[in-house]
């Protein structure tokens, strides 16, 4: 109205629009030129070096103030508020389980091998489903010089008893007690009702050990809200500077782990510039002004095709190691979706290849009919033959046949009706701005419409979306479940099928968002949780997966990397990749290994 865009379109607004068009042309020209002609690029061929760009290119090193710094991005998007790891809004690197650089955990998870590796604890022993005993490394100290002992470990977990609003409180549903038997030994007594050792180990790999002296001084109710601007952890770096533009970490020359890791990290500083959007970060990354990042980049191969020394762990598609499985959640309390045949028809109607190819920019294989990731640490539990024989794949005709076999009839509007219930309109939600998921939802909606199920997308704000999903007020949703961790695939089956955690509509739950009811599954989940060897686990997972394929309470839409691991070998080389796999393509857990192994190109 009074706004010039929506008021009278004046000659000025016309000129503005023309300017945008011409500017766009110019940008396109620049961009196109960069990708097509800059083959010599910034680097030179360096076949003797490992862990370099996917095109075999490596840079010449960076000069100046950031020559000895590692520039990283993709973790922090706003001005840092606090470095209190107990805060839900903690800034990088204090936010939960992101990187072992200021705070560290007792054990480290390796997404590639499924191995649980030493961290602050040099070893751990599991006694059946009774207890887990951890032995600490020698000479661990916090960055203020004080020793880190078993008492700090116990005090860290005990914080979860003091305040139920912090994430460590969940540990006390899995464990009955935690004790320091001496300065270096910690014994966790596993909860004898759930006997879920996998979840206990997962918690141990994801929980930072905090200095008891600092956190015991904070009132219990203030634990998550206390602002900490000088974090004290056991890690190799300390916070040097933080403002709205960057977070800078400086190396701790007295780091306890010099012996364990074979020296200090090669970089003297780690700098995380704070960008406003993926676009800004991607441009800096392409230019070699970032060394490594964790951001979605559409068509990342254009970077190395354009001569940039950019690399990913896998050298061919999907380029990233699958680590998570965004799901299409179906609310089984909604008419139509309460029918397993309809849910299976939906699963069969979705063009998964199109999602992988376009929405995910080729970073995913077409998904299988299973809650188990077919590759990586979970691969040993995946039953390929059963998934192919009793699962589903994209076949629109087969999807319609499932509906008609179940008694559905098509109305004059092209939409099926079953048992008197029209299939739709269903609203498919996922948070706005989650680009790849938004695009995947558009493909799902089109796929469903094509077979006669009325579906439209809707992308609310993240908070509204989370509320609708946790409260069970959605129809269909694209949402995440547990990524690969020491407790998966059990944790993923629990996320989708748990009866114990199911809540009525309107009440918040953190599992079984679709409110799918089944009398048998809880016993099967318990059996899988308590299995102590791989054979026992595999048998239990086979049963769970068979039930999942029969009932289809949800279906996976794509495989996504747990973290986008992308590096630019402009300043450092020897990055881990599939030909140089000394470390997993991770930032969290065992991903810290590469900090000690990468090498500077110059100097």
């Amino acid at each position, binding site marked *: 109205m009074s706004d010039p865009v929506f008021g009278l379109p004046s000659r000025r607004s016309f000129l503005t629009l023309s300017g945008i068009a011409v500017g766009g042309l110019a940008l396109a020209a620049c961009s196109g030129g960069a990708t097509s002609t800059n083959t010599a690029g910034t680097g030179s061929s360096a076949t003797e070096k490992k862990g370099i760009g996917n095109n075999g290119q490596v840079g010449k090193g960076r000069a100046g103030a950031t020559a000895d710094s590692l520039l990283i991005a993709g973790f922090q998007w706003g001005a840092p508020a606090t470095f209190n790891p107990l805060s839900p809004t903690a800034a990088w690197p204090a936010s939960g389980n992101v990187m072992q650089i200021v705070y560290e955990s007792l054990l480290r998870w390796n997404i590639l091998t499924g191995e649980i590796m030493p961290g602050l604890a040099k070893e751990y022993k599991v006694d059946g489903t009774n207890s887990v005993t951890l032995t600490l490394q020698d000479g661990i100290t916090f960055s203020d010089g004080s020793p880190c002992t078993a008492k700090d470990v116990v005090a860290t977990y005990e914080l979860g008893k003091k305040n139920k609003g912090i994430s460590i409180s969940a540990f006390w549903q899995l464990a009955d007690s935690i004790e320091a038997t001496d300065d270096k030994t910690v014994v966790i007594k596993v909860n004898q009702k759930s006997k879920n050792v996998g979840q206990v180990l997962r918690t141990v790999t994801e929980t930072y050990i905090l200095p008891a002296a600092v956190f015991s001084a904070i009132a219990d109710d203030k634990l998550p809200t206390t602002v900490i601007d000088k974090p004290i952890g056991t890690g190799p770096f300390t916070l040097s500077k933080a403002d709205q533009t960057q977070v800078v970490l400086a190396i701790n020359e007295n780091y306890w782990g010099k012996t364990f890791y074979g020296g200090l990290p090669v970089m003297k500083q780690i700098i995380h510039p704070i960008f406003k959007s993926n676009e800004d970060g991607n441009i800096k990354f392409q230019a070699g002004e970032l060394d490594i990042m964790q951001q979605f980049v559409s068509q990342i191969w254009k970077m190395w095709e354009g001569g940039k020394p950019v690399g990913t762990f896998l050298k061919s598609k999907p380029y990233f190691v699958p680590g998570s499985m965004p799901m299409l959640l179906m609310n089984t309390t909604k008419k139509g979706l309460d029918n397993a045949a309809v849910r299976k028809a939906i699963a069969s109607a979705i063009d998964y290849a199109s999602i992988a*190819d376009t929405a995910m920019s080729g970073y995913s294989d077409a998904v299988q009919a299973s809650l188990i990731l077919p590759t990586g640490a979970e691969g040993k539990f995946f039953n390929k033959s059963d998934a192919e024989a009793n699962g589903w794949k994209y076949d629109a005709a087969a999807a319609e046949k499932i509906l008609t076999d179940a008694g559905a009839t098509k109305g004059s509007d092209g939409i099926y009706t079953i048992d008197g219930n029209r299939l739709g309109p269903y609203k498919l939600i996922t948070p706005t701005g989650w680009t790849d998921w938004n*695009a995947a939802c558009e493909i799902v909606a089109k796929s469903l419409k094509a077979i006669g199920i009325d579906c439209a*997308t809707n992308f609310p704000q993240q908070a509204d979306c989370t509320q609708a999903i946790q409260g069970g007020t959605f129809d269909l949703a694209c949402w995440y479940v547990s990524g690969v961790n020491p407790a998966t695939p059990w944790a993923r089956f629990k996320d989708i099928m748990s009866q114990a955690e199911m809540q009525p509509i309107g009440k918040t739950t953190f599992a079984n968002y679709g409110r799918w009811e089944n009398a048998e599954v809880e016993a099967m989940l318990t059996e899988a949780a308590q299995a102590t060897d791989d054979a026992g686990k595999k048998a239990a997972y086979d049963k769970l997966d068979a039930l999942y394929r029969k009932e289809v309470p949800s279906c996976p839409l794509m495989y996504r990397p747990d973290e986008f691991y992308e590096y630019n070998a402009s300043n450092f080389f020897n990055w881990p990749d599939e030909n140089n796999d000394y470390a997993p393509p991770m930032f969290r857990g065992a991903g810290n290994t590469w900090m000690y192994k990468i090498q500077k190109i110059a100097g």
Partner: protein
Amino acid sequence: MTNISSNAVTAEAEGPLVPTDPTPGPKAKAKPAWMNLNFGPRLWVSLGIIVVIALLAFVGPLLYPYGPDEKVGSLYDAPSAAHWLGTENFGYDVVAVLMASTRNSLINGLLAGTLATVIGVGIGVVAGYIGGWLEELLMGITNIVLAIPSIVILILISMSLQSTDIPFFKGIVGLALVIGITSWPWTARAVRAQASSVSTREHIDVAKLSGARTPGILIRDVLPYLASYVVMAWVLQLASAILAESTLSMLGLGPSGTNSLGMQLHWALAFQSVATGAWWAFLPPTIVLTLISFGLLYLQSSLDEVFNPRLRRGKKKNLAAAAKRREEAARKLEEEMKAPAGVTEVIV
């Protein structure tokens, strides 16, 4: 008697008017009013652009071999002989999507622009003609709506519509309604001023004296004098509505699963087409949007010249010729006025 009076009023009226022959002699054959309009080259150029765009939108899909929902390639396949502008982020043919998007954007513009014009003209005419407390009330509402930034209202209503369960409001029609009901105020204000001016003219008094009712007067005696302005306002509302739809869709607030120029730009930005050099994803909708806007703005500008001869532009010699014609007409009129048997005597 009425005819003579009307001609007299027309000749005296200020502002945009349809030129009429001042000396309609008994034997003179009056040409239709539109034939006296001066359609300059600017008008034909703007109409040409709009016709080309309309053909692309409505006839193009009948001839083009691919549909907008037909996956023909992968993410941002480059232009080729088979796909002149390559593929967009979903692997659909850009030309096919562009044609569907243009059609929907034009339909949206027509619906929203017409709605905004109807509301604006309705409120403006009533307020301007009737006056008094009703005028104060209507203009008060108009000013309040004008004072609120439209983008905020549009975003809020669009977000609410997205979460509604009523299918009618979720499509392109719903978005058009939102745009239409938020962009009428400036039309209402301008029309009110015009209507207020017309309401004081003599022919309105005559109509009142002849027993005409208010609605009849508004339709038969007020609106025709605003017709030229309403047409121009409508053209501007079309352009404005198309731009508004593009803005909302580019922000991701467009209707789900619908092609539009704004949605094309939304996905092009989301999938980093600029950074990856996929110009064919964002440039075609930008150019079409620019052409539509340019065409409509140019059309409005040239219509303004047609309806308002004082704004007419041209080369110096044209101006000189026009001045000469005016002088000649004035001289003839003067001679006729001096003549003993004048034909323009007004009998009251």
